[in-house]
């Protein structure tokens, strides 16, 4: 079967194996079937030699977290993410992956009001203990009410997305406060740009993704303001529109997209000049979301932005290995996702940090589900800025601001 993959891209892998230790699934199973090199070899076998698409072969493709850690490790610059997305699209088209119910669920994400209402229902069900949160990898507590989004100016867009806006609007508001503290007027995208499409492309739904991309671009193209994104997965997706739609317009759009830390790193002076900063008395471990580190390659900005605002920032010792969240992956492949997460939590434990900063909602939910105290980096910055003049209390800092881990940590 022809997977529609670019032959040169497919052939750019020489099977050297340097990707293996950077693949979260290979590290767990030790099997080449769950490795980037192995997955590429299978794609090649299917596309070039017409190998049969067995269930096990499909599993090999499905188990990929799409973290793209292999890409940064690859000396040959194999565009693994693109190959994987292409393969999934071909498999989804032929009905081998992404069953109908998943497609239906994903199609709901663009319907913003439905997402918000559904999330409220879910939050209620969780309060009533009707949902086995731990088993489903859901947060132990979700907000029943959301403070409204508000516009404070028109310097930048703040991309709010779908699920994150419903589940973690607190984060958006904290991010907005930090930006405002740097003297920036913010307009949240809200209904203007309902969903980036990252989950869709992961599931192999290329046409749906393109639709969403066009919708987002249409909503945000009336001017050329920078588009700041506080979710690494969404940011990576928006930055990829240029390639996805292959048009000058899309490329110009993608060039306006910045991870909020990436952008703030260039405006740190504004932030520090406007306000006196008392660092929070915390040791914070920075968890690099894969789509920030391996895809956007902007992860160092998080440390840079965070450093002036907390007592100590520590980097984890696992070379940026994925945490296993992978968008919807933690729900689709719970067993592997949990095994992958164990390595991350062990690394966090070794770091000696009390709080984890994660710039991606999926990662923070996934990590908070095992009791880690996880906050968005800018939530910490926001706390540091707002605690000026008041005595910061190490016992309340970190868990007071609606941190996701708070409830489960039993505080």
């Amino acid at each position, binding site marked *: 079967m022809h997977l529609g993959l670019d032959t040169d891209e497919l052939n750019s892998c020489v099977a050297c194996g340097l990707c293996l230790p950077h693949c979260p699934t290979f590290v767990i199973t030790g099997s080449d079937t769950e490795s980037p090199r192995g997955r590429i070899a299978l794609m090649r076998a299917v596309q070039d030699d017409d190998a*049969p698409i067995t269930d096990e072969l499909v599993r090999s493709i499905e188990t990929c977290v799409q973290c793209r850690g292999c890409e940064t490790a690859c000396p040959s610059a194999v565009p693994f993410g693109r190959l994987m997305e292409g393969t999934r699209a071909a498999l989804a088209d032929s009905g081998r992956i992404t069953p109908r119910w998943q497609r239906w669920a994903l199609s709901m994400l663009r319907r913003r009001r439905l997402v918000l209402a559904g999330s409220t229902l879910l939050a209620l069900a969780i309060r009533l203990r009707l949902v086995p949160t731990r088993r489903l990898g859901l947060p132990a507590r979700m907000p029943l009410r959301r403070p409204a989004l508000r516009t404070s100016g028109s310097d930048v867009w703040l991309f709010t997305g779908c699920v994150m806006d419903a589940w973690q609007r607190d984060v958006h508001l904290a991010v907005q406060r930090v930006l405002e503290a740097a003297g920036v007027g913010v307009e949240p995208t809200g209904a203007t740009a309902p969903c980036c499409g990252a989950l869709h492309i992961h599931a192999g739904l290329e046409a749906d993704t393109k639709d969403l991309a066009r919708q987002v671009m249409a909503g945000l193209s009336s001017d050329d303001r920078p588009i700041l994104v506080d979710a690494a997965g969404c940011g990576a997706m928006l930055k990829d529109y240029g390639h996805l739609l292959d048009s000058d317009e899309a490329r110009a759009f993608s060039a306006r997209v910045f991870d909020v830390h990436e952008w703030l790193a260039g405006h740190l002076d504004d932030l520090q000049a406007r306000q006196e900063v008392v660092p929070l008395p915390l040791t914070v471990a920075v968890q690099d979301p894969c789509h920030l580190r391996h895809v956007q390659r902007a992860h160092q900005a998080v440390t840079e932005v965070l450093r002036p605002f907390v007592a100590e920032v520590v980097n984890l010792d696992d070379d940026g290995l994925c945490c296993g969240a992978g968008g919807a992956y933690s729900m689709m492949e719970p067993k592997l996702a949990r095994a992958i997460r164990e390595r991350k939590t062990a690394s966090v434990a070794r770091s000696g940090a009390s709080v984890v900063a994660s710039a991606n909602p999926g990662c923070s939910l996934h990590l908070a589900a095992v009791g880690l105290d996880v906050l968005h980096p800018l939530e910490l910055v926001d706390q540091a800025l707002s605690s000026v003049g008041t005595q910061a209390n190490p016992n309340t800092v970190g868990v007071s601001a609606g941190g996701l881990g708070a409830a489960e940590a039993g505080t």
Partner: protein
Amino acid sequence: MVSVLTATRRVFNPLRRNHNEASASASNAVADTADSDDTALVADLIDALGADRVRADSAARYLASHDASIYREGNAGPICFPESTEHVVACVEAAVRHGRAISPRGAGTGLAGGAAPLGRPVVVSTTRMNKLLSVDVENGIAWVQPGIVNLDLSRALAPHGVHFAPDPSSQSVCTIGGNVANNSGGPHCLAYGVTSAHVLAIEAVLSDASVVTLGDLTAEPAGYDLRGAFVGSEGMCGVATAVAVRLTPNPPAVRTMMLAFQDVSHAASTVSAIIAAGIVPAAIEMMDQRCVAAVEDFAQAGYPKDAAAVLLVEVDGPAGGVAIAGEKIAEIAEANQAATVRTAADEDERARLWKGRKSAFGAVANVMPDYYLHDTVVPRTKLVEVLERIYEIVDRHDLIVLNVFHAGDGNLHPLLAYDSRVPGVRERVHAAGREIIELSLDMGGALTGEHGIGVEKRDYMNRMFSAVDLQQQGLLRSSFDPYCRMNPGKVLPSSHSCSDISALRASDAAGVWG
């Protein structure tokens, strides 16, 4: 892939295990003919190991049929993922019962097809045997399982101020078991020696499913040096299940220098001059212009892309000597018309310089999609002449070569880069490869310095060794494995490898996807 790894105080001691060797040899009587399909074998393996430690589907077998070499004829049977010595014993017992051979597999980064299974054997993957079992500082060793990754081991040892010295370019992924099988080297073996010098004892499962510990922690183990004979045997003598590795103290001082030249011969003569001056650097690595250009974009090591050749020279040891040797090397380089002499200012710069070197093989895909790599060794005084003739050979065959190699010990790695889709190119690549090998041997060199013979170089063995030599090597192998069950068909040309041919009889006809 750090998997364990706090050093336990418990000292792992395979010498105390109680193995029943008599019962193992009894099982050899079983099964003279191989099963026609894998069903019963797989059932047995699952019975012994559990379903999640056995894979028998076509996708898994297809991938386990290959390593990082271009050899494509491998044919794996079921793949097992044992987690203990007992599991490995069970794999071998099942293989014996069903008349199958056994092929051990580590990370599959071998470049000579050594891990490409022939004849549909049971593949024993050691990737889940990746624990650091114990650190014994008093005896200067650590016991590890064979699947532990080379770099993970050194990282886990870092708190003790020691490391495992062999550092192949694939060290971030290759396993200690694979290092033992190939007697792996790496840049720093120039001063520190190859794997053989860093392994004191090996617990291995032999082809009769018996478990034996070769060597021990003493200065000179009694009897023949079985551990020395096992290292480098490419999986043909048994499956290593635990290895006692030597702990090498981290050097008190290190100096890493990058020397760039406008002429390859100036770089090569610098190498000879350094050795002749009585300096033994920890490493001397060389890359030619094409290689530098291919890796620089990825590694951003700061190599001058226009230089004809770049040398990486590292000296380590006590600070006084490092300073003296470093200055002498700079003088020698300048006397040999070096265009750049740069010393890494800090650990960060040093790491980047090495990253470039260690990613060279993978980076070749930036030039061409396929490569065929040789690993010959020549006397280091012949480097200039050999390099010139390699360029001449490659030009004549209208190919591209990237040279990246361990210049200090004369270990060449000419990478013939090509695109296999071009008609006739494979033939030219093989012809050029053969000429490079002939040239190296004519210069008094060796077929392979660290990648091993595997299947790729097997048929060149007659060129390097006499029939008597090969017969003697065959005796070493058959003393360990009289049944020729362990990784059959490798290293020795067919007429010298006991009954390997019959071990390969199993249903090879049906391909993996069959």
